[in-house]
């Protein structure tokens, strides 16, 4: 944003302060900065998987992959979900508590998956569902937290998020979360790695085009954790981030790192309004 020359230095300083907040306000209003504008409406029968210009990865998937996701039995992710269902009522840790001891039936988790990642005032940091579950384990149950990409954590995250299936993603970027949102947005738009690419180059600029045999999606997060056929198992969003960073010959960051947490908030926010699909199936 350009400043007018007539402004006095002090006014300029104030203007710059204000300018910062104005710039973000505009950034969140103009969605074309975050999602590539879609000239075509969502394909017939898949309208539920679109919201404004946002398109779920479901739309980009092949029909065969969608069929797998549509049937809870054929969806291989449910092997993990079923284990998590047993885990839900199994007491563990020094407090001898299970998830059920505090939360009751898992149905009580309805709506929770739609609002994470979320700023937690208690610890003063951003939490996603994985971190929230592990916090329950270490604080409430006094049990060892699960490893990030472990079958247990992936299963439990899917089980909790699944209770909100079909509900619109609705993460908040107001208040203390704003700082993380801006950090995530910056990461998304910053060129990194030997190929000198940012997230946006594939997922905004080239969205809908082919990169060799790959149809580039918008990189929406509403389906995670996802059963990826390539992985032959469930995987977290951060695993996907690591995969993307690796593909563009950039440094892979650690699962749960502050950078990926901020990115998760930004990427999830881009899909506000899309239905929660976890656990989805992707190729």
């Amino acid at each position, binding site marked *: 944003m350009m400043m007018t020359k007539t402004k006095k230095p002090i006014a300029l300083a104030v203007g710059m302060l204000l300018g910062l907040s104005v710039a973000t306000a505009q950034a969140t209003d103009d969605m074309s900065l975050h999602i590539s504008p879609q000239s075509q409406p969502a394909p017939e029968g898949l309208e539920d998987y679109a919201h404004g210009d946002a398109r779920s990865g479901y739309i980009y998937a092949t029909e065969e992959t969608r069929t797998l996701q549509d049937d809870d*039995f*054929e969806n*291989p992710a*449910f*092997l*993990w979900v*079923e*284990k998590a269902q047993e885990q839900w009522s199994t007491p563990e840790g020094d407090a001898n508590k299970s998830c059920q001891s505090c939360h009751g039936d898992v149905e009580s988790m309805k709506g929770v998956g739609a609002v994470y990642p979320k700023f937690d005032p208690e610890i003063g940091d951003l939490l996603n569902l994985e971190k929230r579950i592990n916090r329950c384990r270490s604080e409430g149950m006094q049990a060892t937290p699960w490893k990030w990409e472990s*079958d*247990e954590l992936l299963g439990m995250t899917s089980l909790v998020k699944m209770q909100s299936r079909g509900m619109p993603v609705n993460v908040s970027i107001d208040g203390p979360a704003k700082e993380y949102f801006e950090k995530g947005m910056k990461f998304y738009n910053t060129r990194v790695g030997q190929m000198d690419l940012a997230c946006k180059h594939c997922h905004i600029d080239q969205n809908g085009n082919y990169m060799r045999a790959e149809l580039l999606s918008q990189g929406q997060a509403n389906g995670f954790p996802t059963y990826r*056929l390539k992985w*032959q*198992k469930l995987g977290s969003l951060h695993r996907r981030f690591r995969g993307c960073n690796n593909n563009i010959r950039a440094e892979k960051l650690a699962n749960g790192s502050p950078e990926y947490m901020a990115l998760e908030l930004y990427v999830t926010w881009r899909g506000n309004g899309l239905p929660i699909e976890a656990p989805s199936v992707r190729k």
Partner: protein
Amino acid sequence: MSKAPKPRVKSPKTAAKGDVVTIKTTISHQMESGLRKGKDGKLIPRQIINKFEALFNGKQIMSATLYPSISANPYIDFDMKVEEAGEFEFKWFDDNGEVYTKKAKMQLEG
């Protein structure tokens, strides 16, 4: 560890005589092909489900031999014509000698 394979089966609880019903089965299994190398550069030994068998009232109704190219968490479904009420028994045979089983009952309608 929670790595123990977990079978899942979807079969009808009730069916009418003469009906053709679909039975869906799957099991969580890594289906290690024996062709991959580990971090130490050595081959990871093959460990797959090599055979699947479905029985109804003790009689074999379907069986399949599986090979290393079959993906992890193998999914198998098949159709059966209903003649009588009874119990399904599904068996997955692991390379390591273990057999995972799951049972399900089916009643006749009416």
